[in-house]
């Protein structure tokens, strides 16, 4: 009886904690938390990550990726191709796209983690407060400032990123345009396979883009 009671209290307490934390978070504090977590990780493990990149990608997977709404991003990128895709194609595309992003951006983060200063600008809330735009300015050592905007949406009382705009260039819009052109040319399966193999970037370099 006592044991059951204790478990109940513990369970309730945990549940309350889990529920309370995200509900209190505003879009920008949620993002700030994730950013600081990653910066701290890099600070303490910089040498280990440099020597073992897969280990770093794994850390990014654990810390940063939960902040992103990966299935939704995949859906937005695929746009009209999403409807025709099978469940398997959808999840494979989402995973491959996520890995591509993680690899591409993790390296940039590793190179610049301590030279970047982030200014958080006022949050713009969208319709019904379901989505929001968190604008930031990132300044590097060289004094160059970049406008980085995060589009977030409320998923189960937590704010998840679904688009990043670098100098007003939306990741979704950019990849939607380019990937859907590739899908039109070669089909979704071929695009997924090439993304999984990671040879997309190399191929793009050789082809020179225009075809």
């Amino acid at each position, binding site marked *: 009886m006592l044991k059951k009671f204790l478990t109940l209290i513990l369970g309730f307490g945990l549940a309350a904690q889990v529920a309370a934390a995200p509900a209190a978070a505003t879009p920008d504090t949620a993002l700030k938390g994730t950013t600081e977590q990653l910066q701290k990780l890099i600070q303490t493990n910089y040498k280990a990550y440099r020597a073992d990149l897969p280990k770093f990608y794994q850390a990014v997977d654990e810390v940063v990726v939960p902040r992103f709404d990966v299935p939704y991003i995949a859906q937005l990128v695929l746009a009209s191709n999403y409807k025709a895709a099978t469940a398997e194609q959808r999840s494979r595309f989402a995973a491959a796209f996520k890995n591509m992003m993680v690899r591409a951006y993790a390296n940039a983060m590793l190179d610049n983690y301590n030279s970047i200063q982030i200014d958080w600008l006022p949050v713009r809330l969208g319709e019904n407060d379901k989505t929001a735009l968190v604008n930031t300015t990132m300044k590097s050592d060289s004094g160059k400032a970049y406008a980085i905007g995060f589009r977030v949406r409320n998923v189960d009382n937590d704010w998840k990123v679904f688009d990043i705009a670098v100098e007003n260039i939306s990741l979704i819009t950019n990849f939607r345009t*380019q990937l859907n052109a590739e899908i039109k040319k070669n089909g979704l399966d071929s695009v997924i396979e090439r993304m999984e193999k990671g040879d997309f970037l190399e191929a793009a370099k050789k082809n020179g883009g225009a075809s």
Partner: protein
Amino acid sequence: MRYAGISLTLAALLVSGCAHHPADNPSDPLEPVNRVVFKINETADKYALRPIAKGYVYITPAPIRTGIGNFFDNLDEPRNIINALLQGKPLQASKNLGRLVLNSTAGLVGFIDVASEVGLARHEEGFGQTLGYWGVGEGWYLMLPLLGPSTNRDLVGFVVDIPTKPLWYLSGSEDVYALSATGINLVNTRANYLSADSILEQQFDRYLFVRTAYLQQRWNLIHDGNPPLDDFELPDDESDAPAAAPAPAKK
């Protein structure tokens, strides 16, 4: 007079541009031609402009490059002022006028951007943006030889803005100054984008990247940095539980 004739011809281009197209689905009927021009531009860049810009960076200290950039930005202020007024933004116009006065005097004919230091940030306006502000759509996407990406609307804007440029009023024997100034501006601007080359190289299709980036950049400028939030055209009933209802494979 000849100039008026040219702008009339260009105004005809605007007939095609009525509505705004999203950047991921623009009107690009000239794509095959645009791609050829894009390739020529890329080749010219690879063998001429880019190496020159690299050499220029090598021999010119960064503060001097910033100064030259500031000088040419200052020459754009008359254009910014006129177009801010055309868009009914007198406050913005007076801020730009303040920039022009401050930078031309205390800023040593524009080389130092003192106005930014006192809170008058650079704010770009042009007739292409004015037309967009008035509700004119982009029309077709264009890849112009040497000038780069544009649209019907922005090409008209570019031509209409020419008389606001101080360099336009150099004439006769002074042409050589106007030409060399334009050349220096081109190299200086290209030098500023050298660090973006690696981003361009990582794209699957550079033509599409430049097109998407350009159109989004213009859309952002028309809205003074606050464009309406894009909902990416997803119907609400589809936005949740993406893997729940798999559609049959279509092959």
